[in-house]
């Protein structure tokens, strides 16, 4: 994070704190009479139940309807949410959160017991949550055993010391633990409501949340409407009256409707950013987003023999012209990538990776030498396939990369495009040679990326297994400053090349200039509707 960004973020927070709560102005700017924010979502919301929800657009909405222990500010720094403060025990294993005086939308007070109920509910096998693993990731005592059905849910390491004190015990020290409480699956729910209505409790007429907004209307496949909750503890600071999410499946269609004035925010289709930036300089934005795009080389049992040779993998990675991909295909300010961790991740310094500093012709020359050394050439061409899932963007990148490999290394590439479920199934089963993959960080710290490559990770689909790497990562967990280990880990990846890094994400959006408060500086893109406001044009 650059200093200026951080500064401007702090200034923004300060200005929130000190702004006078005059109905017609905010930060000294005149507010519009109509405070309605309309934005686009790609797919319908899968669930409005915090413990069931799995999708990004669902989480965005849940952050308005509910409030977890901690929130993030516009730069991604932790700020108090339902808890005003927390303390951690000497051994770093017990966290105690002090809850603020706040009410549910039906007037009942928010109690520590509501958190206990929700957290147990997440791991309870009867709930069958796809995100039950999140409690295991947090390392809460007994989470795994409860998920497996070996222990009852009430054995989970959480308890209410009193109505306003929530205590959590975790198995191993986890420096970034508090930031994990911003995740939607940890949001509290009201037991009486859930039990009274069953799966129907998330209907607009039944739902009771503790967030700044209440669910007003839900039209499947069409839109979600939320209205301001006057009972929210910080309602005085809330400006938007209404938040509307429109489901629009097609990127281009969404942009057309944005340009027609139907929305305040939409994503920019790939390749259109430069043109829109020129035409709408104050509306088109690109900012870092915590995801990393890679091509796995399958070096597992089912992978092809050729890829087991590190020279082949290195040659393939070198021969990818990342500049063409970011500057000519994606064109949305994405970062050329020579490592795994997103370079804007908090506390992460980009390690010095040698081939990142070469020119492309240098890389190409080196790649040719390596592939020849490995025994491939015009008489013995390397044959490989790239698997990717159906999407215009993935297709373009796969085509470009197949061309780079064909031109530079004489590799004969077959493109295998399958729809998403098939692609995912094949990747997880190891039925692929080279596979497209993207990983998005769960939290703003490098281990969210680097843990993936450990031999014991459940998501390491490339079959990479390296004892030195495992040791580096295990050691990092207990270090005060693990950044040195992270650099070593990245260097090891660059040498072993279990995957070819391609690019690191940016969010590329259109935002109406009258909408203020969008957290451009938040790498995780966790935004809260109550911080947005609309000014007079």
């Amino acid at each position, binding site marked *: 994070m650059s200093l200026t960004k951080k500064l401007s973020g702090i200034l923004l927070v300060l200005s929130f704190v000190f702004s006078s709560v005059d109905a017609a102005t905010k930060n000294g700017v005149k507010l519009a009479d109509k405070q309605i924010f309309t934005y686009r979502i790609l797919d319908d919301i899968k669930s409005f139940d915090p413990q069931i929800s799995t999708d990004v657009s669902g989480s965005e909405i849940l952050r308005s309807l509910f409030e977890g222990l901690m929130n993030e500010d516009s730069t991604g720094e932790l700020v108090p949410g339902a808890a005003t403060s927390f303390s951690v025990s000497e051994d770093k294993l017990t966290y105690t959160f002090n809850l603020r005086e706040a009410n549910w939308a039906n007037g009942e007070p928010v109690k520590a017991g509501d958190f206990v109920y929700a957290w147990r509910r997440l791991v309870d096998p009867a709930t069958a949550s796809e995100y039950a693993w999140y409690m295991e990731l947090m390392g809460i005592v007994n989470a795994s055993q409860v998920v497996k059905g070996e222990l009852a849910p009430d054995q989970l390491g959480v308890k209410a010391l009193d109505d306003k004190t929530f205590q959590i015990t975790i198995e191993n020290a986890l420096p970034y633990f508090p930031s994990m409480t911003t995740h939607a699956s940890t949001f509290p729910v009201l037991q009486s409501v859930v039990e009274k209505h069953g799966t129907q409790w998330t209907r607009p007429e039944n739902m009771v949340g503790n967030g700044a907004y209440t669910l007003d209307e839900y039209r499947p496949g069409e839109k979600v409407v939320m209205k301001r909750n006057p009972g929210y503890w910080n309602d005085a600071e809330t400006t938007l009256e209404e938040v509307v999410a429109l489901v629009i499946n097609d990127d281009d269609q969404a942009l057309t409707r944005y340009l027609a004035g139907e929305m305040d925010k939409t994503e920019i289709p790939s390749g*259109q950013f430069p*043109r829109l930036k020129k035409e709408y300089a104050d509306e088109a934005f690109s900012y870092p987003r915590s995801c990393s795009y890679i091509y796995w080389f399958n070096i597992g049992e089912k992978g092809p023999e050729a890829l087991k040779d590190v020279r082949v993998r290195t040659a393939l990675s070198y021969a990818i012209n990342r500049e063409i991909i970011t500057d000519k295909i994606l064109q949305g300010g994405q970062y050329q990538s020579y490592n795994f961790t997103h370079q804007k991740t908090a506390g992460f310094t980009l390690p010095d990776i040698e081939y990142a500093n070469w020119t492309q012709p240098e890389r190409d020359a080196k790649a040719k030498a390596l592939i020849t050394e490995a025994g491939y050439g015009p008489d013995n061409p390397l044959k490989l396939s790239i698997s990717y899932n159906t999407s215009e963007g993935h297709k373009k990148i796969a085509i*470009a990369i197949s061309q780079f490999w064909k031109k530079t290394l004489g590799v004969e590439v077959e493109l295998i495009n399958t729809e998403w479920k*098939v692609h995912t199934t094949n990747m997880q089963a190891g039925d692929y040679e080279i596979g497209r993959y993207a990983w998005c960080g769960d939290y703003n710290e490098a281990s969210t990326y680097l843990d993936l490559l450990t031999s014991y990770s459940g998501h390491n689909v490339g079959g990479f297994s390296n004892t030195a790497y495992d040791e580096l990562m295990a050691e990092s967990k207990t270090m005060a400053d693990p950044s040195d280990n992270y650099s070593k880990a990245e260097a090891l990846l660059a040498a072993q090349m279990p995957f070819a890094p391609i690019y690191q994400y940016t969010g590329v959006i259109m935002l109406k200039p009258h909408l203020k408060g969008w957290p451009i500086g938040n790498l995780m893109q966790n935004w809260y509707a109550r911080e947005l406001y609309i000014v007079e044009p």
Partner: protein
Amino acid sequence: MKTQADIAVVKGRSLWSEARRRFYKNIAAMLGLIVLILVSLFAFFGQYIAQFPIDEIDFNVIGQVEQEGGPSIKNGHYFGTDDLGRDLFARVVQGTQVSLIVGFVGAFIAVAMGTLYGAIAGYAGGRTDNIMMRVVDILMAIPSMFVIILLLVMFGRSMAMLFIGVGMLSWLDMSRIVRGQTLSIKNKEYIHAAQAMGVSDVKIITRHILPNLWGIVAVYATLLIPLMILTESFISFIGLGVQEPLTSWGALISEGAGTMQYGTLWQLTFPLFFFVITISAFYFVGDGLRDALDPKER
């Protein structure tokens, strides 16, 4: 239609020459035929005119397609380039090949399956007919798009699967029509005579019944081909079409339609032009064939 089959048997050759004469006189149908011939020539010889292979990215164009990628004689991209800077002329040629092949092979599968199935059901009659037609009823009730999606998902996306998928859509209608025709032919005297002489059922179906269905099958087939092409374009639209770097009209059109407001309209118009003229031509030819084969018309 009934009378046509009847007369065909008696008059044989003269009817066909009569039909041919009527077809030649139909201006729209002849124009359609000429268009089809030209499009086929384009599809199978266009690659010799194209200046680039279908999958080569022009690095002078990529990233600034709107400014540099337009149709131009000078840089050899006669139809401009696609979003990745690949030559659109070469890709339209290739897409035309794929779409025509899908159309013809798909229609062939539908016609062959439908005709055979319908002829057998109609000729056998009774319980066999009843069961066979109930099967058709059941299959008709299954949403075909759903089946195609599942097939393409299950067996992976290949040309063969595409043929089977689109072919399977339409043999059901064909089988119903053919069965109806067969029922009426079956009771003709010459069939009874053949049966009395001890000619085998297989021979009766192949020698006497199928040839008499040719007229209606031909008409139906010309109308099926455009339907196949349209179906393929929809499958491409939902992203289950042929694998890159191969392409088809449907894939090209849906790519072009996505970017039409971004100043690269040629990406839509060239493939759409070939798509529209070809399908229209098939309709004209189909209508012309039907008029020509049906003496009642004039």
